């Protein structure tokens, strides 16, 4: 069991599954508004980052590629956040 | 010249330049008609002049592509052309058919021409850029097929390089998508929808493969950079081109009766279209900077760098300016489109042809490069024509912005002709820039006749 958890991919998988469950649950209870949006974006960001670092194995890649992919995630999340922020006004 | 059969490229290049001159002369006539409306009326009405201008453009570019392919393919495949004789026969057929078509445009009214050439059998005429009479259209297909057969057989019997494969795909695509010019239903929306399968998938699709492979070929030859490196980048660039350009067709489907979702698909993908052009510019400069030898043909290198930059500006930047649906709503069908069209065609396709001609012609004439004097003249012509086209584009853009403002955005929109009169000054300036372009073209042609100390091949 401990050995299984040593593998970062396995840890990432568990976190990803749980995080998906949380997002789904937030949907089920009808969460809406600023807090819900920020929470879901945050979850998506964490999930995306895990995929980039542990699935795509960019943790050990040249910095440029990490920055490009993680930057993409930040950019997309920020644009979505801005658009939703506009819609809440 | 490494292979004897490459020599068939020479008449193609000469014809291309000759037709290019014709295109520019008719461009000047049209430019003048923009400000002196009845100039040459009724002998050469504007629609005839325009048809000659655009058709000559297409035909001279095709001559350049074919000549370039005949020059490039034997060298890439490391074998003689499958049939040089066939290439020469096709040259004369295409030239005579092309000339006859232009004479037809000028000599008889278009409706009579349609009547005489069997437009009643299959109605294909009278659509922008595809005005050619039926026999000419069939002729184009026949010539293209024989040409493709010749080229493909050469590649099949010789070495298959990335450059020749990309070029072949481009040329086959050119022929295949031209077939949509035969489809002209009475339903105008369907007509327009598939008309773009020829026009857009040519200029923002398969032609770019031809452009990319010519550019890669000349860069390998002039910079001495490893073929492996250049071919990899060629693949990356043409991939970017097609993944943005194919769906990018959608930017023509905003207002012609096609569903609304094209406004999103078209805007999103055509917004990505500048990327391959940018990559191409970076690629060209990068390879030249990493050059391992000093090629004596400086002019060809200048054209290679120029085509990257100008294609990026003309097709990439000027295209992006009006490609997003909310902007295009106001600019669609105005002088903005004309501005973009001029710089994009010159930057991408005129220049790449001039590049391959600049590289190949001295070799076809038995030397590695022209004399210094000749090259200096050629570079002058490069700058004259390029700066002129930049000014043509800027003046047309200014005219277009004013037109959009007066005729489309304003609360009290002016009628078309009233708005046109108000922007006449810009048309005058465009015409003078056109004259400068013609001077540049004359300088270019002169450079072929300037001798001096030649560099041995």
């Amino acid at each position, binding site marked *: 069991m401990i050995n299984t958890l040593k593998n970062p991919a396995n840890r990432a998988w568990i976190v990803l599954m749980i995080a998906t469950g949380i997002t789904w649950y937030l949907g089920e209870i009808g969460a809406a508004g600023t807090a819900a949006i920020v929470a879901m974006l945050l979850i998506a960001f964490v999930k995306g980052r895990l995929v980039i670092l542990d699935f795509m194995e960019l943790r050990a890649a040249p910095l440029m590629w990490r920055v490009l992919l993680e930057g993409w995630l930040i950019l997309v999340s920020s644009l979505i956040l801005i658009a939703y922020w506009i819609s809440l006004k | 010249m490494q292979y004897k059969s490459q020599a068939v490229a020479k008449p193609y290049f000469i014809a291309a330049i000759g037709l290019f001159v014709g295109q520019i002369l008719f461009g000047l006539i049209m430019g003048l008609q923009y400000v002196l409306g009845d100039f040459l009326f009724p002998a050469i*009405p504007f629609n005839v002049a325009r048809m000659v201008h655009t058709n000559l453009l297409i035909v001279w570019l095709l001559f350049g592509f074919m000549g370039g392919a005949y020059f490039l393919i034997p060298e890439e495949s490391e074998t003689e052309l499958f049939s040089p004789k066939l290439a020469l026969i096709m040259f004369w057929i295409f030239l005579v058919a092309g000339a006859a078509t232009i004479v037809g445009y000028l000599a008889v009214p278009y409706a009579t021409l349609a009547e005489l050439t069997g437009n009643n059998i299959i109605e294909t005429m009278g659509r922008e850029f595809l005005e050619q009479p039926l026999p000419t259209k069939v002729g184009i297909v026949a010539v293209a097929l024989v040409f493709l057969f010749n080229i493909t057989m050469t590649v099949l019997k010789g070495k298959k390089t990335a450059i020749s494969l990309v070029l072949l795909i481009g040329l086959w695509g050119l022929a295949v998508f031209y077939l949509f010019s035969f489809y002209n239903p009475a339903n105008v929306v369907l007509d327009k*929808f598939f008309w773009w399968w020829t026009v857009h998938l040519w200029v923002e699709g398969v032609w770019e493969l031809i452009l990319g492979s010519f550019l890669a070929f000349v860069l390998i030859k002039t910079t001495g950079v490893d073929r492996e490196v250049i071919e990899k980048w060629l693949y990356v660039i043409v991939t970017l081109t097609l993944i943005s350009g194919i769906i990018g067709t959608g930017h023509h489907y905003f207002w012609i009766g096609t569903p609304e979702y094209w406004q999103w698909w078209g805007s999103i993908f055509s917004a990505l279209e500048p990327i391959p052009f940018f990559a191409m510019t970076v690629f060209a400069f990068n390879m030249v900077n990493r050059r391992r030898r000093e090629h004596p043909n400086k002019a060809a290198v200048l054209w290679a760098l120029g085509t990257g930059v100008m294609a990026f500006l003309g097709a990439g930047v000027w295209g992006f300016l009006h490609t997003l649906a909310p902007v295009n709503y106001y600019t669609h069908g105005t002088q903005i489109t004309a501005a973009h069209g001029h710089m994009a065609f010159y930057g991408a396709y005129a220049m790449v042809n001039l590049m391959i001609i600049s590289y190949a012609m001295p070799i076809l004439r038995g030397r590695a490069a022209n004399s210094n004097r000749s090259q200096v003249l050629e570079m002058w012509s490069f700058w004259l024509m390029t700066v002129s086209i930049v000014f043509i584009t800027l003046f047309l853009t200014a005219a277009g912005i004013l037109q959009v403002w007066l005729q489309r955005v304003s609360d009290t929109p002016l009628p078309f002709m009233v708005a046109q009169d108000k922007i006449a000054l810009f048309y005058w300036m465009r015409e003078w820039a056109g004259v400068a372009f013609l001077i540049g073209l004359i300088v270019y042609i002169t450079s072929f006749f300037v001798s001096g100390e030649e560099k041995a091949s």
Partner: protein
Amino acid sequence: MSGAFTKSMARNIFYGGTVFFFLLFLALSFDTLSQLPKRDMRANMTPQIAEGKKLWETHNCIGCHTLLGEGAYFAPELGNVVVRYGDEGVKAFIQSRPKEGIPGRRSMPQFNFTDEQLNAIVAFLKHVNSINTNNWPPNSQG
């Protein structure tokens, strides 16, 4: 050394990417073709309209005018010309073009159309005007 870059991989991506995006384009086109009957007013198509389109083409009108914004930019947009001038106005305009042009002005040729032909042209232009173009052009001036 950061990652290899091989020609075969670049080539495979080129082929794969091209096929992928072309298929996507075909899928979208397929959907468009299924939606068009609701937008292009084909139910109203008549032989007269088809005749009008043929006249439009064989006189190379697109060489000066735009139709739904496509064509040359030398003369006015005609997709909505019937809104500007009305049926009779359009006919009268075409009929009244002087053979030798108008001195100093952009001139339209005199095509010597018959009344029947003029009716066909107007029918065609009215048909084009009825197409759902997502509210283009922005105003009646085209």
